[in-house]
């Protein structure tokens, strides 16, 4: 392989990695936002991604909606699911300690997966061809319109999220609660409302990822949320959990590392690569890429 071809291939793989990473990033955002607000690893988040994918599937396959209405519908359905879960399962246990909350989240995750297997059946389903595939060749770089769509939707949603968090009243309230929940409460912020909105936003982003995965990879099933969910969580930790830009960067890093390992080593080591990257980063920077070291006060 000539150096030119190698360079081209690396660029190609990095591009592929970025589009896979967008999916991780979208899911990771939900993990990181929820963690930032209530310090909970929301294990069921990967399954919300699955719920979103199925909502998108029914919207397009059964109700024949086109891409954007289906995307919005899936996001709304997932947001409602997320909010419901928070209200019934996490809110009652919020004061009981983090490990109890984590186990509850694991329970919710199992419930969504098994209810999915029961109701939706275990067999994978083919996602309808909402967007016909077109492949472009840009100077040797193979790019298809679905990858472009993933990037466009991901970046669009990220900018929207950043705008909400930075400039809207509820976004400011979210940041205040993330910073110091008790102080925010004393300042008159409705903490419960902020938590509800956080779950809604995070779940909607995961649903968007679910629909995009359905369109690009064509296959969805009730257990599809497990691995991406786990890796997205790793991505959130990688970037520095609780930090929104960290989740985005972490997601892209995960996607790129994974694709490069598959291209240049072997697909068998794909899943290990993500975790090796995680451990190396945690050992070098125990708080993640963008995390700030807050020493314990003695």
């Amino acid at each position: 392989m000539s150096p030119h071809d190698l360079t081209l291939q690396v660029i190609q793989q990095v591009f592929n990695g970025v589009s896979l990473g967008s999916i991780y990033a979208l899911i990771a955002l939900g993990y990181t936002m929820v963690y930032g607000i209530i310090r909970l690893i929301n294990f069921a988040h990967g399954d919300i991604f699955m719920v979103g994918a199925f909502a998108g599937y029914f919207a397009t396959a059964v109700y024949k909606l086109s891409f954007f209405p289906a995307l919005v519908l899936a996001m709304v359905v997932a947001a409602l699911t997320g909010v419901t879960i928070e209200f019934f399962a996490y809110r009652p246990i919020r004061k009981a300690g983090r490990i109890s909350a984590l186990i509850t989240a694991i329970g919710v995750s199992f419930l969504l997966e098994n209810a999915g297997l029961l109701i939706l059946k275990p067999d994978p389903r083919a996602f309808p061809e909402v967007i016909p595939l077109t492949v472009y060749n840009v100077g040797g770089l193979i790019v298809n319109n679905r990858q472009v769509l993933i990037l466009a939707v991901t970046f669009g949603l990220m900018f929207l999220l950043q705008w909400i968090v930075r400039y809207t009243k509820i976004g400011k309230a979210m940041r205040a609660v993330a910073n110091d929940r008790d102080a925010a409460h004393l300042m008159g912020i409705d903490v419960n409302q902020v938590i509800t909105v956080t779950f809604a936003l995070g779940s909607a982003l995961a649903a968007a990822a679910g629909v995009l995965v359905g369109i690009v990879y064509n296959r969805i099933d009730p257990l599809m949320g497990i691995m991406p969910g786990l890796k997205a969580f790793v991505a959130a930790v990688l970037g520095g959990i609780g930090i929104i830009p960290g989740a985005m960067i972490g997601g892209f890093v995960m996607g790129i590392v994974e694709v490069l390992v598959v291209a240049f080593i072997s697909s068998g080591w794909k899943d290990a690569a993500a975790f090796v990257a995680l451990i190396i980063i945690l050992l070098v920077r125990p708080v993640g890429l963008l995390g700030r070291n807050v020493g314990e006060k003695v």
Partner: protein
Amino acid sequence: MATQFGWKKIRDYLSLIVTALFLLGLAYINVISGLGLIDRYYNGILILVMVNVILAVSLNLINGITGQFSIGHAGFMAVGAYVSALLSIHLRWPFAAVLVAGMAAAAVMGVVVGIPTLRLKGDYLAIATLGFGEIIRVVIVNLDITGGPRGLPGIPPKTGFFVAEALAALTILVISNLINSAHGRAMLAVREDEVAAETMGVNATRYKVTAFVVGAAFAGLAGGLYAHYMMFIDPKSFSFFKSVEVLVMVVLGGLGSVTGSILSAAVLTYLPEMLRQFAMLRMVIYSMLLIVMMLVRPQGLLGTWEVSQAFRDLWRRRETGEAGRRDVHGIA
């Protein structure tokens, strides 16, 4: 205070009765098992209960006693299972030797994983142990000697109920002893407050690694038993879900309570079997029970309570007679 005292007394006697019934049941199982009258199916469940008891009690040492949140226990179990199985298949070592070798290999893995990751805290430690657990699994998938993703068949069936039972009892004894020693107290201190423990002369790093390695070794033992019961192992059996399953047992029993770990390992192994008649609904019911139990009793079934406390209280009361009323609660 009087009512509380009465309730405590009732609870102590009740736990005495429950323990007696439990031991009686265990004796009964041993007798019919010894006479060869036990159903193959139940025999299998009982062995898996013992394997899970070993896993839960050993993870409790790490998570509940030392407070180091680990979710990679299945990785250590896998190391023990594969090492012991391979030694059985290829070198035909005796069963006891392969179990010890499996434990040793898992313990070594505990050192390898523990030393770098135990510098991390809380969720970061959890995710790093999860990562190591997954890496161990992926390595097994990619090796030739392990049979890769297809699994490793042909392991000699050596784990019987009595062996599993004896080793579970041994595990409980050894880990309880450790917890009740000065070393166990140091581990508890690390859980409660690492900085304060260090200023009391406790080398926190050393105790964290110790708990991790001892826990890993027993997970390796559980893996060896499991492999020699199933006669076939594959990487899927030791995925992140197995780790989560054990974690759920520990938390549901009550983090830090050995009694709780044993109880919930037994219940949670048997429960899915009991629910088998509900077919597809089975796992839905299981996960709902999990959520409901957490909502109703977030501190776990037993909290940090141990059955030995009941005996100690009863004993003390017997010794002091009615003077037992001079209990701290009486004064407060």
